[in-house]
């Protein structure tokens, strides 16, 4: 129990509660159903992006290409529906297959060449995104079936279906890392590839699978974004998919995922995404000089992590006495 109070997850919950308290005190509208819906919708997408990055950070590497892979999956989805005329369920499969394949390419290159995943994914980010642009000529797919767009607007007690999807995926993923032999082996390989290899784990194969898993999660995130926009658009993750990088890193790192690999926290990542979304949303709702919002966001982030460190020090000190 004591270890729970020392954990990152607990710290994030405290942080979320504090910021919610502040924001709802400042602004009564904070709890409006629409705001809840909006926050949960963004948080759901950010959580999945974070989980996608987390899955590669588990190897001690990183992937700059998650945004590009996501966009490729979304565009493949749009193409399958509009140009190939497939049913949306088949199109989902096509989109995920594209994502998984691209993840495999990343993983294979990283393992086979032994070059750091940073450089590999820097290059493949360009290649994937460039290929997508060339094929799509920058045009969007808008004629999506009503099921998809309605899903994007669906809410359960003001909570967006996107968020619920993200939570469901997170639960599965948490169980995967906790209970599946494969998940355990991925973490072992990530923490110390050589030791894992000598214990009978195919470290190389695990690294590839981590990239594949990450790509699959990126694909799901992109499909959620597609549902939210009601369209598959090439710019949904920004130039080269780079807009996903910051939320991608922020959520798992706040959540306690080790950048050196081998340890992940699925609930921490989801909580990290929620914290960041609430911070951004709450700040935008206060009337701060528009150009200063970002500076204050930076300060609050710093305050949040510093507060967390002090909490841990305090608890550790009082725990011993």
């Amino acid at each position: 129990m004591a270890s729970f109070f020392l954990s990152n997850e607990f710290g994030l919950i405290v942080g979320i509660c504090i910021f919610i308290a502040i924001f709802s005190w400042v602004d009564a509208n904070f709890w409006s159903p629409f705001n809840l819906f909006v926050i949960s919708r963004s948080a759901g997408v950010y959580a999945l992006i974070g989980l996608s990055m987390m899955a590669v950070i588990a190897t001690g590497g990183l992937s700059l290409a998650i945004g590009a892979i996501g966009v490729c999956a979304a565009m493949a989805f749009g193409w399958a529906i509009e140009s190939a005329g497939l049913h949306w369920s088949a199109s989902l499969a096509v989109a995920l297959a594209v994502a998984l394949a691209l993840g495999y390419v990343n993983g294979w290159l990283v393992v086979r060449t032994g070059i750091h995943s940073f450089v590999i994914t820097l290059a493949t980010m360009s290649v994937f995104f460039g290929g997508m642009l060339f094929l799509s000529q920058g045009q969007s797919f808008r004629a999506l079936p009503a099921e998809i767009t309605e899903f994007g607007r669906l809410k359960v007690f003001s909570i967006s279906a996107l968020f619920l999807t993200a939570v469901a995926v997170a639960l599965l993923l948490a169980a995967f890392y906790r209970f599946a032999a494969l998940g355990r082996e991925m973490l072992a390989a990530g923490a110390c590839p050589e030791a894992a290899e000598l214990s009978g784990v195919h470290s190389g194969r695990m690294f590839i699978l981590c990239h594949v898993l990450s790509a699959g999660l990126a694909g799901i995130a992109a499909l959620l974004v597609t549902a939210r926009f009601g369209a598959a658009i090439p710019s949904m993750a920004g130039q080269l998919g780079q807009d996903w990088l910051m939320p991608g890193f922020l959520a798992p790192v706040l959540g306690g995922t080790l950048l050196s690999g081998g340890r992940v926290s699925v609930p921490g990542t989801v909580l990290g995404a929620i914290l960041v979304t609430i911070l951004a949303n709450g700040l935008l709702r206060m009337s701060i000089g528009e150009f200063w919002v970002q500076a204050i966001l930076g300060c609050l982030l710093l305050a949040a992590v510093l507060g967390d460190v002090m909490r841990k020090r305090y608890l550790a000190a009082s725990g011993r006495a």
Partner: protein
Amino acid sequence: MGRTSAYFQADWFGPAVISVLAVLVIGLIDRAFISPAALDVLILAVALNGMIVLSQMVVIAIGQMNLSVGGIGGLAAISFAGLMQVQGLPPVAAAAIALLIGVAAGLFNGWLIATTGISAFVITLASLSLFKGINLGITSAQPFYEIPAVVKAFGSEALFDMLPFLSLPTIVIAFALMVLLTRMPLGRNILAVGANPGAVALTGVSLKWTVIAAHVISGFLAAAAGVMAVARLQIGLPTIGDDWLLLSFAAPVIGGAVLSGGHVSVGATLWGVAIVAIITQALVLFKIDPYLVQAVLGLLILWAVGINRWREVRARKGEGKL
């Protein structure tokens, strides 16, 4: 071990050979690429990007990351331009203050990281937001236009019509960094902390101050890059620095730096910058379909890194244990 094989094993050797070969091959295909004017542009790119990248490299050396290089650079750039335009300060004074701002920003990063033990990644991610936010708050996204003629001349003219003035700071800094990292205790401590922080702590060297020093140097270099960018672009744009992050990591890694710390090379890093610049500029010249530029850029980077990697593996096979 012969001299040649020593070179063959050096970090800078692979990127250097790739760069020089690429320039020669592209030059053979198209003479325009090796015209003095074109080489001038290449050197300018290496000079500016080199400063950016060295700023990141120092932090990579201690096994950390500085996500706020662009934030610091942008802040320094608009401070430099703004102080000249709004306060009417002479360029030298404005540059000095801009550099001080960089040092202060680095100190802020380093001090927080060293005293709280929070990962550099998180701290610099937050401070990136802070620095960029201050930048936007000051400028409201408006550029500063009134750049004095001497600054513009510094950014566009060349010494003896050969060596762009802008490359001088980079040359000086690169040399100084090389000396620092290979010959001075501070630089050695930075590398040692990157390789094995526990071992350094046991020798009694202060981990805290070494980390802070690395971040201060990084902040200083990022600010220098910001000032140089103003001179190069002839305008104080608030967007300066937004695009620095990926390049700042790519070049050291292409040059063989180990992201977990302890191993960087100034020479190899600068050659890494050169490879990226050559590829970028060659793509402009070869009239690639704009929709394909990104894809081709990615493939070429993979290719260049792959070759270098192959050489490293070959070189390592030669070594044995004693």
